[in-house]
């Protein structure tokens, strides 16, 4: 009986390691080959890079792939949509949760329906043309904001309900107006939800490339994901450079994931589980 248990435990650990390895190997492959020279990277295998490590690859990529510019673009789009999306989502979630009239519930459902709806990119060009937002950073930020507002509103809505209404009542008696009530009293209480929403919006925007594909024609405006893909098209024979580019593009995401795993997991599983 005891040996059977030990065997089971060993097996379980082994299987867990196999799954983890399957998930890690692609990342190791990229890391190893980013540090090789062109010749040995051509094989794209998991052999450890030989010394000296080719750190120069990263500098080459940053220069050839114009990574500084696209890093700036990605940062602008992501930061812009985080600020707009989280602010408007929090404001909407707050009033729609606190004052649940028939109309407000309908508006909430309408907004949250966007979680599942697809965007009609083709017709969207008409709207962007009409607003003169084609090929502009402002247009793409507003687009990212609109794509993520539904889920972020949903996320924060669930959280607002947990902030006691008595707090609002006390503040109103003390003479708080609606604006100061929200920003001074309620907003600080929503911090965990705001943090989760910010991290998720940032990651989603950073990783997204479909909207720039449709709406940003000039390569100077491209975010990192799109320029890495473009770089791949031009330098597909230089796997060491492509890997270095991929690694640099993924690094911010991986860092945020390592630091904010708790927020990401709680946000992505919100609403999916009872309780």
């Amino acid at each position, binding site marked *: 009986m005891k040996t059977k248990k030990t065997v089971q435990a060993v097996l379980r650990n082994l299987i867990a390691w196999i799954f983890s390895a399957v998930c890690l190997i692609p990342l190791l492959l990229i890391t190893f080959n980013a540090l090789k020279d062109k010749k040995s990277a051509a094989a794209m295998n998991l052999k450890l890079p030989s010394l000296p490590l080719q750190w120069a690859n990263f500098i080459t990529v940053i220069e050839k792939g114009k990574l500084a510019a696209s890093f700036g673009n990605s940062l602008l789009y992501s930061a812009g949509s985080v600020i707009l999306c989280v602010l408007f989502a929090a404001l*909407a979630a707050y009033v729609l949760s606190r004052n649940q009239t028939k109309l407000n519930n309908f*508006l909430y459902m309408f907004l949250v329906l*966007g979680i599942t709806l697809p965007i009609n990119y083709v*017709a969207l060009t008409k709207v962007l043309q009409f607003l003169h937002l084609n090929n502009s950073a402002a247009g793409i930020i507003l687009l990212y904001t609109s*794509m993520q507002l539904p889920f972020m509103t949903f996320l924060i809505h669930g959280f607002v309900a947990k902030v006691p209404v008595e707090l*609002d009542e006390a503040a109103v008696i003390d003479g708080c107006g609606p604006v100061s009530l929200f920003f001074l009293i309620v907003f600080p209480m929503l911090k965990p939800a705001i943090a989760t929403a910010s991290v998720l919006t940032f990651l989603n925007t950073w*990783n997204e490339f479909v909207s720039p594909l449709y709406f940003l024609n000039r390569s100077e405006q491209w975010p990192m994901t799109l320029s890495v893909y473009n770089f791949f098209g031009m330098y597909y024979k230089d796997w060491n450079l492509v890997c270095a580019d991929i690694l640099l593009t993924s690094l911010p995401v991986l860092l945020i994931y390592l630091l904010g795993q708790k927020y990401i997991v709680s946000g992505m599983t919100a609403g999916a589980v*009872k309780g």
Partner: protein
Amino acid sequence: MNKKKTYPIYFAYGALLIYFVFFFLPGLIGVGYSFTDWSAYSDELHGVGFANFKTVFSSDENYLKIITNTLEFTLITTVLKNVIGLVLALLLTKSIRFLNMHRGIVFMPSVLSTLIIGMIFKSILDPKSGLLNSFFRSVGLDMLAKKWLVSSELAFGSVMAVDIWRGVGYIMTILIAGILSISSDYYEAAAIDGAGGWAKFRYITFPLILPTLATTTVLNVIYGLKVFDMVYALTNGGPGKATTEVLYTAVFKKFGTGQYAVGTALSSVMFIIMVFIGIYMIRIMTRNEVVE
């Protein structure tokens, strides 16, 4: 306390306006444009009735293949992500060393950019120099070294496999949360009654995570029907004629060639299907929220 004054509705205007203008409105006018001959080649619009929809559903074009591809992709990835996700969730809620590390690693592909994953797997699945085939050859399983992404028989399966690799960690994480929310009393009672591992799963775990499985299924279905990134990055609809083409890669190609009307008709079909799935989904997702 006057609720209307304390919680003024204009707080919600910003979100509603941006969402309506950039998200909902294109969906609506898109349906309108589906009945015209809108294209990149003429400035004038003419009504053409249902002609675009006839094109979309006619058998002599590839669209039917595209729609069946999309449905096939949705069905297969949904089932396999749920099954593998469940196995992983059951495994990673047992006593295992470095449990959190394993969970973190399996979830990690979900936060990487699909475009980048596509590029990495293009290399791994390369028939000649790819890591997968090199591995098979090195262990003497040469017959398993196939032309993953470039043969028309295997391409679609390979795309689905990569997508499952990417998405299964997310499903697993949701299911872990579901399993952990089951009260341990049930298991203790079952243990007293002498239930083994299988009986516990069959009569406690499985029935109690069915609602969670329903949610992951809907999430997967929504994702599958809308899939674009993975297919675009791996095969862009090829090899050959529409072997791996799905709805949204087709829409993108129509956009690229300036056939806007057909593109928006395809999008509108999806939009209308999704409104119905969406209403069902929102019901599931909001049923747990506290209503005061």
